[in-house]
């Protein structure tokens, strides 16, 4: 099971950080590139793709790639760096900074210290190069926890070198996985592999039938789903598809191809319609045997203009209308009165609920394409101690004041070691119909001990999901106890 999981995460480009490695990496920074100009940066990315097809774009203005192949091709790291500068200068980036070192962090810092000539750190020299940089560099470049870095600095560890030189277990025991991650960064190791975009692999979606199918209808259904996934992924890369091909493989391995170009408004719906027409009898070849594999491939790409249709072909007039409406309502009611939601990181429904003003960038939501950047610590979708679904539909910030009592009517408290003093028996809360009532079922407690290394900001909470009422009429609530006080944080409404 665990081997299987490792393999799966390995394929998607994220692995456990157990492997000691520092991939020789080249970093390109365009310091004055506007963060929101992803479309313009696509031009730069394409120029760089002439040097190497496999690169990781962290944000507009910042990209990485492993140097092994291209460096051999251009005759060494220095020659590669010079070529890269020439290439991006011809793509009208005038302030490009290029750094090459072992590991992503080393390359990034090398690029930062480069100006305007590239900085190439010799192989094996990254740890020495990193050692002199101040520790708080990690806050900005590696999303390190500010308080943890502050604590380390108060302990007299001011540089990456000082932290890297500690006994390897001391940070891990004191700060857990995040401490271990920081130390490995300081030592110049890559804690997560680069998420490389591999054009050929990324532009294909396929579905295998078992057993093979004969009905055209079935293939069109499959193509529709595949097209949706393909376009969705391209959109996450800021690209739109203007040409696509379909391959049908029959159960004997013979394949049948068709390709299309579609300049305007190419959507999954259009592609599925093209597939349907192609499979209708006419003066073209049709599959003669049952089809085992349907494969779609994006053949030609264009930068996403922001007007390409959504999954099922959004009516553009719709989007334009909503944009106008949102702007007008923001004028009428205030900027933060018109919102779009997203599901953020966190353990509880309240922590994960985020409403972002219309027009502000949204990080990640549970529905849309994943933003291409390495996960920050604590951003994994399921945190340890996270409260499992189903999620309650209403959350209350601040929590509704309540009393959680045990069967004997005594308030439940949680000891310093995280042990509750009793089982939930009764919930009193003014906001609930009937001011609450007796608890017929409960689940939990989930115990959260956050920032335990920092007494001033340490938070200890215990959570229960309780059902107030009886077998015919139940209200499910999430109740939290913190500092001996109970509160209803969410209701399954």
């Amino acid at each position, binding site marked *: 099971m665990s081997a299987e999981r490792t393999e799966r995460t390995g394929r998607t480009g994220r692995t456990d950080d157990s492997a000691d490695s520092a991939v020789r990496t080249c970093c390109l920074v365009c310091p004055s590139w506007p963060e929101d100009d992803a479309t313009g940066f696509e031009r730069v990315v394409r120029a760089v793709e002439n040097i190497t097809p496999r690169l990781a774009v962290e944000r507009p203005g910042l990209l990485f790639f492993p140097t092994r192949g291209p460096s051999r091709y251009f005759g060494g790291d220095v020659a590669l760096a010079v070529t890269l500068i020439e290439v991006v200068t011809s793509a009208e980036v005038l302030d490009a900074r290029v750094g090459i070192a072992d590991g992503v962090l080393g390359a990034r810092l090398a690029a930062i210290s480069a100006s305007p000539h590239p900085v190439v750190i010799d192989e094996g020299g990254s740890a020495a190069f990193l050692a002199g940089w101040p520790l708080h560099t990690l806050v900005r470049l590696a999303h390190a926890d500010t308080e943890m870095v502050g604590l380390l600095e108060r302990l007299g560890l001011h540089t990456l070198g000082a932290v890297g030189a500690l006994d390897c277990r001391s940070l891990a025991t004191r700060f857990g996985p995040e401490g271990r991650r920081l130390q490995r960064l300081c030592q110049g190791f890559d804690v997560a592999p680069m998420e490389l975009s591999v054009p050929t692999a990324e532009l294909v979606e396929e*579905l295998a039938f078992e*057993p093979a*199918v004969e009905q055209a*209808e*079935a293939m069109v*259904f499959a193509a529709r*789903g595949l097209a949706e996934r393909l376009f969705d992924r391209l959109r996450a890369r800021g690209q739109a598809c203007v040409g696509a091909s379909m391959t049908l493989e029959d159960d004997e391995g013979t394949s049948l191809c068709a390709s299309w170009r579609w300049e305007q408004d190419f959507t999954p719906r259009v592609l599925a319609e093209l597939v349907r027409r192609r499979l209708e009898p006419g003066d073209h070849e049709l599959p003669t045997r049952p089809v085992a594999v349907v494969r779609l491939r994006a053949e030609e790409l264009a930068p996403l203009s922001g007007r390409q*249709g959504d*999954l*099922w072909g959004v009516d553009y007039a*719709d989007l334009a*209308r*909503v944009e*106008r*409406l949102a702007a*007008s*309502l923001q004028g*009428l*009611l205030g900027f933060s*009165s*018109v*919102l*779009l*939601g*997203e599901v953020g990181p966190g353990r509880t*429904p309240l922590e*994960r609920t*985020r*409403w972002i003003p219309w027009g502000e960038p*949204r990080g990640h*939501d*549970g*529905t*849309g394409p994943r933003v291409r950047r390495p996960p920050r610590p604590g951003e994994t979708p399921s945190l340890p101690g996270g409260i499992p*679904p*189903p*999620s*309650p*539909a*209403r*959350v209350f*910030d601040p929590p509704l004041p309540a009393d959680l009592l045990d069967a004997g009517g005594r308030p439940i408290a949680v000891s310093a070691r995280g042990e509750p003093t009793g*089982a939930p028996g009764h919930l009193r809360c003014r906001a609930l*119909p009937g001011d609450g009532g007796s*608890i*017929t*079922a*409960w689940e939990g407690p989930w115990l959260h001990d956050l920032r335990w290394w920092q007494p001033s900001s340490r938070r200890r909470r215990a959570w229960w999901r309780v*059902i*107030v009422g009886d*077998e*015919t*009429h*139940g*209200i*499910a609530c999430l109740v939290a106890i913190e500092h001996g006080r109970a509160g209803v944080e*969410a*209701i*399954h*409404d």
Partner: protein
Amino acid sequence: MSPPQLAAMALSTPASIEALTTAIQPTSPGVDRMLVVPGPLGSVLPGGGVRRGSVVLLDGPLGAGAMSISLQFAAAATAFGGWAAMVDDDETPATPAAVELGVVLERFLVVRHVPVARWPTVVAQLGDAVALVVCRVPQGLTLSTARRLVARARRRGTILVVAGAWPGESGLRIKVERSTWRGQVGDPGAPLGDRLVHLVVEGHGRPGAPRSIPLVDQHVG
């Protein structure tokens, strides 16, 4: 392998197959005028959905499940590229639940801080741009204002899902009465079981009868 099974493989939200099948069939006017609601909720609605341009009254006490039901309507409206909106007066809707119920958050507009005096304008404007608006009637909404909103919604084909004392006419009336939690109720400490929402649906010439539907989590179910 039958087409519905395939769709289940190809699409990540199996509960919306029903809606998918309708959405891709040659659109007859009858289907087009209907917002198809997938899953158990659709099965208790006349015609499997809600007529576009109509008003749905949806209400229930806190904890009974009315918010989840309105999120399911928003999910149906946002499923195939459409937009939905909510006038959120108490700032309590939670995004994880919305996603679990199938709402596409990037096409779900939430509007807050709406003063009572501006409420009709805001709802009317939202209705001009999106397919479905969820809102709660403010104090003192007059019959004439409600009628103007109904007329505008009908013209635009917008569905208004309204909670509270709506003075005007309505198509469907859904009263969410209570929820029961099946399974481990009475067995403390065990994970909670499935949820049944008990509701009464009236309208379109049908008398209301109590119905119970399981609350479906689209990502799990």
